[in-house]
């Protein structure tokens, strides 16, 4: 089975603050890690490969330093890694990202299954997976919590929804986005780490695959951010004093006042 895992390098901590003077983002940590949800995507791909044979390719788009995250994916057992990196890819929103990934995947051409994490920790949109599937003209199932059965031309999945889960049969090739419940990601092996040091990461720029330049990066992004600001902090609340009976009494009264009960 040929599997492509789409991963993103994200800042290790999402604890960004806004500098009130410059209104720019101040990141506490500049260290990049693989988006935590993508770790489950990588793990699921590796498990499928171990069961069924085949190959796992990790694909990422980002600045040159995203190569580190692809090396980490190799250390976990991924066979090949491709980084889409070019100045003109910068500033992409979810639509331009999905388009760029789709065009790269068309160059890879051979695949049965694409696995993405449910969403990234920095953008939190969950939009790239479904959007990418559409760009490739393949089906997708989001929020997959379990793969029940894999055949050469189809796969049976459990999809997490609000009230429980749905079982869905999807034809291959197809795309899934996975939730945390699906597996327990492994740690890198020593052999993997050695390989990760020496293996070549393919880097594709704007001329290495077929793209229309007006559809990538900032230029290809219909949405744009016009303002960033710190969220309104909640007003510091009230700590209820007194002994337990009086605290409970006060709390019940507060609930009555706000018409909860």
């Amino acid at each position, binding site marked *: 089975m040929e599997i492509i895992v789409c991963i993103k390098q994200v800042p290790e901590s999402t604890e960004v603050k806004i500098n009130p003077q410059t209104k720019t983002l101040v990141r506490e940590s500049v260290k990049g890690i693989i988006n935590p949800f993508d770790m489950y995507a990588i793990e699921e791909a590796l498990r499928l490969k171990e069961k069924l044979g085949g190959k796992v390719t990790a694909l990422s788009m980002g600045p040159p330093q995203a190569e580190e995250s692809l090396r980490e994916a190799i250390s976990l057992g991924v066979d090949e890694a491709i980084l889409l990196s070019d100045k003109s890819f910068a500033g992409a929103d979810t639509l331009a990202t999905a388009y760029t990934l789709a065009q790269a995947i068309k160059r890879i051409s051979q695949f049965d299954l694409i696995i993405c994490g449910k969403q990234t920790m920095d953008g939190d949109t969950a939009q790239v997976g479904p959007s990418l599937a559409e760009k490739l003209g393949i*089906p997708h199932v989001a929020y997959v919590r379990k793969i029940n059965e894999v055949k050469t031309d189809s796969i049976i999945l459990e999809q997490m929804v609000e009230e429980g889960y*749905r079982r869905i049969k999807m034809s291959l090739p197809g795309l899934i986005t996975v939730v945390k419940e699906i597996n327990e990601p492994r740690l890198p092996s020593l052999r993997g780490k050695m390989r990760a040091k020496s293996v070549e990461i393919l880097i594709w720029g704007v001329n290495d695959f077929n793209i229309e330049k007006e559809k990538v990066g900032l230029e290809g992004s219909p949405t744009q*951010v016009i303002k960033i*600001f710190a*969220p309104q902090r909640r007003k510091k609340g009230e700590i*209820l004093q007194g002994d337990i009976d009086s605290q409970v009494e006060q709390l019940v009264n507060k609930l009555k006042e706000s018409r909860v009960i």
Partner: protein
Amino acid sequence: MKTLDIWVIEEKCNGCQLCFKACPYNAIEIIKKKAVIKKENCNLCGACVNACRFEAIFIACKVPLEPVVGYEGIWVFVEQKNGKLAPVVYEIIGEGRRLAQKLGASLSAVLLGSKLEHLVDELKFYHLDRIYLVDDPALSVFMDEPYSFVLSNLIKKYKPEIFLGGATSIGRSLIPRVASILETGLTADCTSLDVDVAKRLLLQTRPAFGGNIMATIICPEKRPQMATVRPHVMKRAAKSSEGKCEIIKEKFAIPPFKTHYLDFIEDIMENVKLEDADIIVSGGRGLGKAENFIILQELADVLGAAIGASRAAVDAGWISYSHQIGQTGKTVSPKVYIACGISGAIQHLAGMQTSEIIIAINKDPDAPIFQSATYGIVGDLFEIIPKLTKKLKEILGN
């Protein structure tokens, strides 16, 4: 054509020369105590923007001033399962009506499914101008492919300028697919919406970086402007006494699709769904073991509340992942969130900080949850919660 541009706001510039010193390309001159950008030298690196202490230099995209024409009206996607409306539908209709009034635009609902006459009869009472109905057996169960096919065709035909859906598991899977077909912009999980009436722009505000920052996003050139809206944040639409509204029925030849629904397995652990709950009782590390969730369940039963959990409690195996609230779990926004033995890590707060009232019960007075709590009790949850349950039982029993 979208281009980046740089400019100086003269009122803010005091000619301090910090930008001049910071510029590696010799692209800034100070003329009459004001910074002037020499555009032929500038490569928009942003060094001057960072150097300026007065927010006087900007690099941004130029937004075209001309509104896009040929598109009219606000549409809301009516999510339904087994002929029952998702609660978020009433909220986006309410919000849609508010925006439509500001814009002087019409408001329509789009209803897809099979045998939905009863829903049309209900929706009529919510101040809608039109209901677009596609009733087809192929749409009886939600699947991304047929739904995105029908929705995108409807949008192409009737050209709404704004399209809103709920940021539910269905909405966040389906609507990106539709936006991708239409090659338009989509903003996920908005917590506040507004419109720029002159430019007819939807101003879409959403949290990013786990709720650490808020971003306002626009879609200036493509239509419709699409957004998914976080459930429980917007006000529900008011019901009117007269059900008047135009019904437009449409039919599309839906091609065969590649995903097939097999069955549905309900989560029997949950009496009340987290996403729909008005009250959530949530437990964390402080509960100590799985059995202690019973104490929370008793409180939840009295209040008709759902049970949530922090990541620590889920990782310890005390409760299933479907109850996890926070950045790697669900995002909820109930009227009341009761956090029991939850310290309040930033990742947990990201999933619940838009709740109306937050009640924190924790024995550690320094727990960060108290910073966000509307009401806090420092103490032993094993003493407090049973007493609270008992007290509420007395009141609600009457």
